[in-house]
C-alpha cells in the first residue's frame, strides 16, 4: 500500500523534474532562435538592399572586423591591449567609486548632523550631468588613464552612495535596539548590524554601477585619449566605419556580461543568509 504511494510520489516528482528540464531547454532554444533570427533578418535586409550597409553595417562585416582586430590588431595596437586599458580604467574607477560611495553612505547614514549638512550639496552634485565633468578631468589629469578613472569614479560614486545611505537609514530599528541591549557599542552596531543590513542595497547598486564605470571610461576615451575601446569607437566613427562601431560595442557587451556574472557570484556568496526569493508562477 505505502509502496504504491511511494511509487506514485516518485513518479510525480520525476514528472515535475522533467517539466522543469523541458522548460529550461525551451528557454535556451528560444534565446538562440531569437538571436539567429534577428541577425539573419539584419543580414538579409542589407543583402537585399533594404538597408544601407554604410549606415547600418551588417553582421558578417562586423564579424570580419572583429576577426581583423583579433588577428591583425587595430589601428592603435592589438585589440587585447586596448581592451585591457579600458578594463583597467573601468575597474579602478569602479573600485575607488564604490569604496568612496560605501564609506560616505555609511558615515552620513549613521550621523544625522553630517547627513543634514551634506545632503543638499550631494543632491546638487547629483543633478549635474556628470559626463560633462569628463572635460574638466581631461584638463586636470591630461590624456592618460587617470582622467578616465576620475570620470568613472564620479559616475559610480553617486549610485553607490545613494544606495548605501538608503540601506543604512532603512536598517531595522528592532535589530539595532536589540544589539544595543545585548551590549553593543555604536561602532559595533555599525559593523555588525547596519552594514550587513545595508549590504543587499549596496550589492544591488554595484550591478548598475559597473555599467556606469564602463560608460565613464569609454566616454572619457571618447573625449580625448591615446588608447582604449572608446578611442576605437571614435576612430571608427571618424572614418564612417559602422562595422567598427558595432564591433567595439560587442566587445564592451562581452565585458559587461562577464562583470555581471562575477558580481552575481559575489552577491550570492555574501547574501547566502537570505531566504530563497519567491518566484511567481509562470513569470520566473
Amino acid at each position: 500500500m505505502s509502496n504504491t504511494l511511494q511509487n506514485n510520489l516518485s513518479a510525480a516528482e520525476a514528472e515535475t523534474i522533467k517539466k522543469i528540464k523541458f522548460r529550461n531547454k525551451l528557454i535556451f532554444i528560444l534565446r538562440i532562435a531569437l538571436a539567429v533570427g534577428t541577425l539573419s533578418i539584419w543580414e538579409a535586409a542589407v543583402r537585399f538592399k533594404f538597408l544601407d550597409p554604410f549606415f547600418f553595417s551588417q553582421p558578417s562585416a562586423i564579424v570580419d572586423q572583429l576577426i581583423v582586430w583579433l588577428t591583425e590588431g587595430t589601428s592603435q595596437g592589438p585589440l587585447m591591449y586596448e581592451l585591457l586599458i579600458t578594463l583597467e580604467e573601468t575597474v579602478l574607477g569602479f573600485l575607488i567609486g564604490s569604496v568612496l560611495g560605501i564609506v560616505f553612505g555609511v558615515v552620513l547614514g549613521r550621523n544625522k548632523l553630517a547627513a543634514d549638512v551634506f545632503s543638499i550639496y550631494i543632491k546638487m552634485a547629483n543633478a549635474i550631468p556628470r559626463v560633462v565633468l569628463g572635460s574638466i578631468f581631461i584638463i586636470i589629469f591630461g590624456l592618460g588613464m587617470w582622467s578616465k578613472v576620475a570620470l568613472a569614479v564620479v559616475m559610480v560614486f553617486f549610485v553607490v552612495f545613494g544606495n548605501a545611505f538608503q540601506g543604512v537609514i532603512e536598517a531595522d530599528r528592532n535589530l539595532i535596539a536589540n544589539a544595543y541591549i545585548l551590549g553593543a557599542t555604536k561602532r559595533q552596531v555599525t559593523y555588525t548590524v547596519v552594514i550587513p543590513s545595508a549590504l543587499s542595497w549596496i550589492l544591488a547598486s554595484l550591478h548598475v554601477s559597473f555599467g556606469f564605470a564602463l560608460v565613464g571610461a569609454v566616454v572619457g576615451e571618447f573625449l580625448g585619449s591615446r588608447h582604449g575601446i572608446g578611442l576605437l569607437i571614435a576612430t571608427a566613427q571618424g572614418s564612417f566605419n559602422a562595422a567598427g562601431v558595432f564591433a567595439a560595442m560587442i566587445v564592451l557587451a562581452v565585458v559587461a556580461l562577464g562583470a555581471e556574472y562575477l558580481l552575481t557570484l559575489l552577491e550570492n556568496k555574501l547574501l547566502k543568509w537570505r531566504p530563497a526569493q519567491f518566484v511567481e508562477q509562470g513569470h520566473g
Partner: protein
Amino acid sequence: MRDMSLTVQEGEFCAIVGPTGCGKSTTLGMITGLNPPSTGTVRVFGKEVTGIDPRIGFVFQADAVFPWKNVIDNVSLGPIYRGMDKELAKEKAAEWIRRVGLAGFEYHYPHQLSGGMRKRVALAQTFINEPKILLMDEPFSALDVQTRALMQEELLGLWSEKKASVVFVTHDIEEALALADRVVVLSKGPAIVKSSYEIPLSRPRHILEARHTPEFMDLSKRIWTDLKDEVTI
C-alpha cells in the same frame, strides 16, 4: 503617559496588561534607556537610568534575531559585544542553544527556522547575558497557541534557574496569570496603574493544570472586568 508609578521587586515576575496604546511598550523602552522619558525619572536598582543598563535583557515582540548570522553566532553575540573571547562565547552559546532545545540547529540561518524556534534563539540570546532584569514586550504574541504554551513553560523553566526580575507585557490575561507573581492592570492613556493582583498560584507551576483551578478562573474574571471598563468607550 502621566504619573505612572510601578515598582518591581527583585526576583519578581510581574506581568503588565492594559488596553492597546496605553503605553506598555513605552514603559519598557524607558526602563531600558532606549527611549528616555520626556520628564521624570526611571530608577533601576535605586539608580536613575541614563543609558542602556548591561544588567537588562529585552525580548522583543517582533523577530529581532539577526538574519545574516546563524544560530550560534546570534546567541554568542551578547558576550562578544561585551568583550568575551570568541571561542569562549561560542562554547557558552552552544550550552544555551542546548538549553532552549535547539541543539543540532547551531549552523542554521534564522530563515530556515520556524517562528517558535526563532523565539527560542531570541530567548537564548537574552539569557546568555544573565540579565538581572528581564523585559519582555509581548514576546509570544506572534506564535500559534500550542507553540505559545510550550514557550511559556520554557520561559518559566529558564527563569526559575536564575530568578531575574521580569516585567512581562502582554495583552493576553491568561498568559499573564499563568506566568506571573503579580499582574498589573494599566488604564487607558494617560496610563496609570489601575489595579494590581498578587497571583497565589504556587511554583513551580504547571501552566496547563493551573489554568483550570478556581483561583485562576476567578482572577481572570476580575481582571477582565477591570480591563473591560477601559476598553469600552
